[in-house]
């Protein structure tokens, strides 16, 4: 094959000792993207499952596509553009710069770090790079996206040692950074729907007036303002179905987040702190998006099956708690997940300690 021959021909240039040897990791990243390498098993199991991290990540990216496409259409719809295609085209043009900026910034940093560490390039950012524009309000300036991405990748991920070692979900960290550093642009009553159009989000309305101007069905289908990817519950559920079917995301976490949210929603409804049905919480804001795509991040969530139930439930519960009790931050999902990211190792610690205790009990039984 011509392409393979070409790759083989330029390979020595990029290998150790070659002219462009310092770009070794970058070359390797592109090569393994093009071709599954010819590496054979040396030790351990001689045959391996054909699944790899690239496939896992690409499934998540695919799962994000419905939410992204609907989000683009909704941007146009919210801006008052008539017709499906023109509205979508409008939203597409609004969203595209953010997506490009997020990928370019993040991947550049990832490549540089991989190069420096002489590591292979990890695929994790393929997902993070798409998540970041999806959790940002659409009109956010590109430089904020770039700055938040850089912050998330460097402080959130690389300082911990890269993919697999990070404590916090990088995409949420990017949003949190933007949220606290540039609050007026990110939430409150003046979020950009699109260039020049602003208004209060459904969450903001619920928090301040206990009602919203949209129906629950509007919120379910997604015809409400909000961040690019988070508005349409139905599009998110499509992605969730793919993630659950392929087993990429944990059903335990997803289910328990929704359970936690509902439980606390009903609790606050029962004690009269809210005057809207509990299921509203699942439909508005970033709740569904967070539950499906953020809370289930395997690296930053709890890792034990039992821990996942606890972690998920608390993510949902805290999200509603923050929304209802602390009106200064109407969007509780982001903070809740970040908070639970920090607590996840602690939950796992106790679950694993129980395993150790069972093992230690064996010794006592023997004696």
């Amino acid at each position, binding site marked *: 094959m011509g392409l393979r021959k070409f790759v083989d021909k330029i390979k020595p240039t990029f290998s150790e000792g070659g002219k462009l040897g310092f770009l070794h990791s970058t070359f390797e990243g592109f090569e393994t993207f093009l071709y599954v390498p010819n590496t054979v098993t040396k030790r351990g199991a001689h045959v391996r*499952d054909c699944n790899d991290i690239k496939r896992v990540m690409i499934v998540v990216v695919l799962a994000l596509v419905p939410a992204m496409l609907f989000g683009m259409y909704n941007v146009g719809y919210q801006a008052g553009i008539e017709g499906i295609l023109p509205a979508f085209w409008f939203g597409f043009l609004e969203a595209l710069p953010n997506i490009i900026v997020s990928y370019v910034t993040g991947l550049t940093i990832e490549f540089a770090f991989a190069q420096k560490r002489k590591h292979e390039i990890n695929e994790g950012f393929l997902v993070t790079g798409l998540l970041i524009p999806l959790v940002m309000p659409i009109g956010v300036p590109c430089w904020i996206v770039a700055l938040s991405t850089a912050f998330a990748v460097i402080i959130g991920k690389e300082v911990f040692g890269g993919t697999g070692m990070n404590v916090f979900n990088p995409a949420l960290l990017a949003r949190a950074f933007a949220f606290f550093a540039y609050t007026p642009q990110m939430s409150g009553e003046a979020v950009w729907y699109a260039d020049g159009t602003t208004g209060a989000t459904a969450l903001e309305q619920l928090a301040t007036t206990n009602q919203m101007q949209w129906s629950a069905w509007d919120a379910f289908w997604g015809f409400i303002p909000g961040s690019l990817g988070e508005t349409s519950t139905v599009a998110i559920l499509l992605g969730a179905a793919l993630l659950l079917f392929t087993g990429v995301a944990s059903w*335990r976490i997803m289910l328990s987040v929704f359970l936690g949210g509902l439980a606390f929603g009903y609790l606050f409804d029962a004690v009269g702190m809210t005057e809207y049905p509990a299921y509203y919480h699942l439909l508005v804001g970033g709740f569904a998006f967070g539950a499906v795509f953020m809370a289930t991040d395997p690296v930053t969530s709890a890792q034990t099956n039992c821990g996942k139930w606890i972690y998920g439930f608390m993510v949902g519960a805290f999200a509603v708690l923050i929304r209802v009790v602390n009106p200064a931050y109407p969007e509780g999902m982001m903070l809740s997940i970040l908070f639970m990211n920090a607590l996840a190792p602690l939950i796992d610690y106790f679950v694993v300690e129980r395993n150790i205790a069972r093992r230690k009990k064996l010794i006592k039984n023997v004696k």
Partner: protein
Amino acid sequence: MSKNIKLCKGLDIKLAGKAEKVVENVPMAKSYAVSPLDYENVTPKLLVKVGDQVEVGSALFFDKNNPRILFTSPVSGVVSAINRGEKRKLLNVAVEPDQKQQMKELKVVNPAKAERSEIVEMLLASGLWTRIVERPFGVIANPDATPKAIFVSAFDSAPLAPDYNFVLQGEKAEVEAGLQLLARLTDGKVHLSARKGDEGFMAEVKGVEYHTFSGKHPVGNVGVQIHHIDRIAKGDIVWTVNIQDVAIMGRLVLSGKLDMSKTVAVAGSEAQKPCYKRIISGAAVESIVGKVAAGVRVISGDVLTGATTAADGYIAAGANMLTLIPEGDKYELLGWAMPRFHRFSVSRAYFSWLCPKKEYKLDTNLNGGERPFVVTGLYENYLPMDVYVSYLLKACLVKDLDKMENLGLYEVLPEDLALCEFVDPSKIEMQQILRDGINLMIKES
């Protein structure tokens, strides 16, 4: 009779090239070899030199760590080569057979009447002691120790594994005699586990604690069975013996002769005629499968835990099968994005779940690059034990001995993690990490 133990976790990988149930007698090979590399933690010290005459049962080398443990020749003949690798590391001792199968004098005792120490001495002298595996750590049993129990699995659930009911047909007396001999070595019980519904004569064997198991691989792994029968706690020692080696021990007791012949399965998509072969332990690969084509990997054992064996090498001592599969040293354009109907995956991100009965022709490609631990909750589905795989492996990686012990290092051997390694999308070398952890523990304790 105890009740059946049903395990839900695990995976049966369906591979092409299952051995047909026909036994072919293989003529005497040109060369046989005994290798210290087939065992863990053996430091060999040679007892012979090239040109020496040896008999069946003559010691070729011993283990410096425990000089009572002898490694003996399976055939009579002349020591033809002592093969060494880097830093003069002993690879194997090759013996050219003289076809006579002259036996070395062995004091064979009746296990029912003899002292325990006499039985131990007989097994040590014959070299059959090396077939007893000690847990924790999976090393050759320490002759000075007394195990709390001995476990024998009567079936192998690994891909393409030999069917021991078929392999051992007509050897019921030998299996029984072997198990009776083992019963004298422990103060506790001898546990024999068979597959429910495919028990053969195992159910009729007397003098053992009999169990049945059902489920998917690794249900046949003796380590998994121990976990469900009588878990290993800190300080416990248990021994395990492969069922075919039990029969060889029984043969020694019944006939008074050391006969190292055994039936092995030749399987895999590249095996020209997958079937069973009657060989003598340590035979040259070429004598068993003939010339091996280029681009084929020969594995002593199954595809998950076996050892790569050179085409001009020898079958490993403990192996009861040879698997031949294609090497996968080819590039695949955008493979990770393709549907890949011909490849197998437990993940429904691919399509092999659509045809659960299909037999796959898997090659040795790693199918990706090594990555850090990313996915969670996957490994636990393929190890039917109360062990947190990733936590144990991370403890091994950071060499935290206390944690390794607490998280179950004594209960698992690399073979038990082989399935986790197979399914892992991060392609982490779990068996090697665990082996390194175990070796570190041996060194420190």
